[in-house]
């Protein structure tokens, strides 16, 4: 059984802790059952399912640490693994940045596990694929999609009294629909903890509409445009920015949050005042893990409030050095928004470009968080509140920091890649060249 109960996990962890002769020991125990199905050209290409259960032991002598892992759970194997971790630790160089392990912590009870997802079996996946492929075949369209699901647990404990346990599930689905002649393409991605929310047929229908609507594109001149970024388009740029909020990099002067003459831009207003971004493991749409990888509790943190940088995340070493609270990076971000839907934002746009998705986003300049990438799978020109015609794909060169200073409107957030992201209307978004790709 890949998913152990809290009691079963604690029993194994306690047994391993008792075998230790090191100064400190921590034990991680995790298991999951994960499966996937992939299809292309309206036919399933691969599918599979795996289960995994593994135990990891980190032993510490002074500032030397060593880790060993195992996936067998008899007493002899557990003992062997503890001894192996201790041998590796003794041979390791001192880590001058080593931090003593944490003692007992209070963890929130997050709602990250859904029975519906844990119950997924090969029949569910085959049906989900069929529901996506069948409507495409009927309309002479070509579907390529991927569904993967996972149900698992993770537990951790150490000889300072810390113990944490959490169960989590996830399901991710993405679908690309292309016209038979390859001149139109549409895309939709969905992710949930609870698989009962996933409807591959309705998601595919949106991708089908986009594929059919994106044929016969017109070429617009590259330049600065007002854009409406669907959450699937906006999420990567925003996530890249939020993942760059490491305090050490900023303190060291090699981050967009580093300041001329030293120090960080904490407390500075860097964005439009409508921009507020926080994280909350208790959020029911994107429930997160109650603890970070090193055992720190996850809690609600406001990262940007009304455009002002409020928090950055810290390693425990760097927080101690700076004398501040060691806030860990969260698993997902929540971008506050209003109540307007994507359709409302389109309706309120005189001239602009609707972007379904960005592709191949890469950093160009870490100093300004300049990124390049391209639009893909449905790019449309909007005039007087209506989608007028599909346009050829563009390459962009833009920074999310600049983008969030050019906010025109923020819609109602929806889940995208484990975050809550609103559709965004942004002015002066920089497209630098055209692409022939469909």
């Amino acid at each position, binding site marked *: 059984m890949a998913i152990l109960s809290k009691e079963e996990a604690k029993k194994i962890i306690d047994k391993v802790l008792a075998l230790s002769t090191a100064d400190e020991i921590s034990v991680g125990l995790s298991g999951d059952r994960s499966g996937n199905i992939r299809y292309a050209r309206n036919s399933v290409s691969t599918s599979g399912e795996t289960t995994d259960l593994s135990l990891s032991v980190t032993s510490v002598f002074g500032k030397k640490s060593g880790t060993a892992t195992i996936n067998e759970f008899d007493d002899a194997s557990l003992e062997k693994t503890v001894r*192996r971790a201790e041998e590796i630790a003794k041979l390791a160089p001192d880590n001058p940045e080593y931090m003593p392990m944490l003692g007992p912590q209070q963890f929130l009870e997050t709602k990250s596990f859904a029975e519906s997802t844990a119950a997924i079996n090969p029949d569910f996946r085959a049906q989900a694929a069929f529901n996506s492929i069948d409507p495409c075949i009927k309309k002479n369209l070509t579907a390529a999609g991927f569904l993967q699901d996972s149900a698992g647990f993770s537990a951790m404990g150490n000889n300072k009294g810390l113990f944490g346990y959490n169960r989590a599930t996830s399901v991710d689905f993405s679908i690309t629909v292309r016209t038979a002649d390859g001149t139109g393409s549409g895309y939709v991605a969905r992710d949930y903890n609870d698989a009962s929310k996933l409807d591959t047929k309705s998601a595919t229908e949106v991708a089908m509409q986009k594929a059919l609507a994106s044929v016969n594109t017109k070429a617009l001149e590259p330049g600065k445009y007002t854009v409406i970024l669907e959450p699937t388009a906006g999420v990567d740029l925003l996530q890249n920015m939020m993942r760059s909020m490491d305090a050490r990099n900023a303190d060291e002067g090699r981050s967009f949050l580093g300041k001329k003459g030293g120090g960080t831009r904490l407390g500075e207003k860097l964005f439009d005042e409508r921009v507020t971004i926080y994280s909350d493991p208790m959020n029911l749409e994107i429930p997160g893990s109650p603890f970070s990888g090193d055992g720190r509790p996850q809690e609600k943190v406001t990262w940007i409030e009304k455009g002002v940088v409020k928090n950055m995340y810290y390693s425990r070493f760097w927080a101690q050095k700076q004398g501040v609270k060691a806030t860990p990076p969260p698993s997902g971000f929540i971008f506050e928004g209003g109540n307007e839907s994507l359709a409302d934002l389109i309706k309120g746009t005189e001239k602009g470009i609707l972007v379904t998705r960005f592709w191949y986003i890469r950093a160009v300049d870490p100093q300004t968080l300049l990124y390049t990438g391209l639009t893909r799978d449905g790019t449309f020109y909007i005039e007087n509140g209506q989608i007028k015609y599909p346009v050829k794909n563009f390459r962009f060169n833009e920074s999310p920091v600049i983008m969030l200073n050019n906010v025109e409107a923020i819609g109602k957030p929806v889940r995208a890649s484990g975050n809550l992201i609103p559709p965004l209307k942004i002015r002066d978004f920089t497209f630098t060249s055209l692409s022939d*790709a469909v």
Partner: protein
Amino acid sequence: MGRIVSPEAFLNPGDDVAVKKRLADAALNAAKSKGASYADVRIGRYLNQFVITREDKVQNIVNTESYGVGVRVIANGCWGFAAVVDVKSEAQMAKAAEDAVAIAKANAKLMKEPVQLAPQKGFGEVSWKAPIKKNAFEVPVKEKADLLLSVNAAAMANGANYVNSVMFLVNEQKYFASTDGSYIDQDVHRIWPIFNITAIDPKTGKFETRNALSAPMGMGYDYLQVNPKDKVTGVTTRYNMGYDMLEDATAGAKQAKEKLTAKSVEAGKYDLILDPSHLWLTIHESVGHPLELDRVLGYEANFAGTSFATLDKWQSKNFQYGSKQVNLVADKLQVGSLGAVGWDDEGVNTKKWDLVKDGVLVNYQAIRDQAHIIGEKESHGCCYADSWSSVQFQRMPNVSLAAGKTPLSVDDMIKDVKKGIYIIGDGSFSIDQQRYNFQFGGQLFYEIKDGKIVGMLKDVAYQSNTQEFWNSCVQVCDDKDYRLGGSFFDGKGQPSQSSAVSHGSSTARFNGVNVINTARKI
């Protein structure tokens, strides 16, 4: 990645070939008895060692080992696959084979066309070993950590504010057996030493970085043996089959500082002189990926995308992919390259073939179940799986730009350029899902005016279209300048698999390419 082990575990030779043959036969026999028309078995032991440092600290040393078996079968005309970790018994092998047959039969119900496998002769019991001179896994970890710390010290002593360095080492011990009668034992080694140097100007708050000019190689620790014959001197030293990491870090720190005050490029059209340490990535993205046959056919449509290089262009026999100077070659034999093996992961002996000849598209990259689509009788031998637990599929072989046939040095090439930029090292990279429009950065940019290098530039990226770019290639230096670059972690597929691939070239000139200025204010 596998289980974490102590470095001593790497010295264990693993299971004997006789044991592997017995295990493999158990799976092959079970597959056949359950109705498989074809079966192959891959018994893999994968060793990884990563040594990670910054400034004067060893941050982490990761040692992992992964051992298991993947069994692939064709039953009722359809593929099936099953994998087992830590295999010890013939009964486990037989069970995996039976599972694979059951999956194939279940998938066959949804099948539209049965698999057509290009015939392949069996090779009996054979073996291949990467021609390494020094096994990196036999070198004590301390020696590697000490080298990286000395590299970091050299960078700091020459003006770096920060430096991170890493050594990646991989050994794949792969045993392949198939119902065609092959039993193939192979030992593959890879190494990639890298650093990233940061220089900061506290007055302006600006920072610049310079990455290592090393290449990931299909070599042992011998890649780090310094030999003057492997050095290419010029505006900065570059490296061939041996890498002087200490020297490169010393130069890198000075260049990172120099970049802080370099001139910001004026956007416009330039003639580009691209060093092999840079050009490999452009080849990888704009030639390697679009000529993968599975992409062309639509199997990667939902993730990596499709390709502009459609079958009709190839069938026309006159699709001008590039200028007449452009010869692009696929090669799984190249010594020291990341793609070199004796046989691929479906038992096909490796080879070399043309993709673009005198500028014209002539072929793709195809494996056994694709060869018939392009009218070939045999596979190209470029099938790969990144683990025993992953299904093998078509992966990019080494794809390289052939050296120019006429003698030509870099200095002679630069002499004729009126307004140009000489780019060394790879940087930011992005390309669309059909591989038309791309943008590349780099590590070092030198302005060329009237045939001379006049100084360093920064904020440079070039944008072009694949066909337009390769048709703007006017010169390629001769084979004296030929070097390999490559990717250690090239991703493809869902779930994603990683592979390593080299791309060779000599320095080449491309005329009138669009250069943008990437400087912004926030």
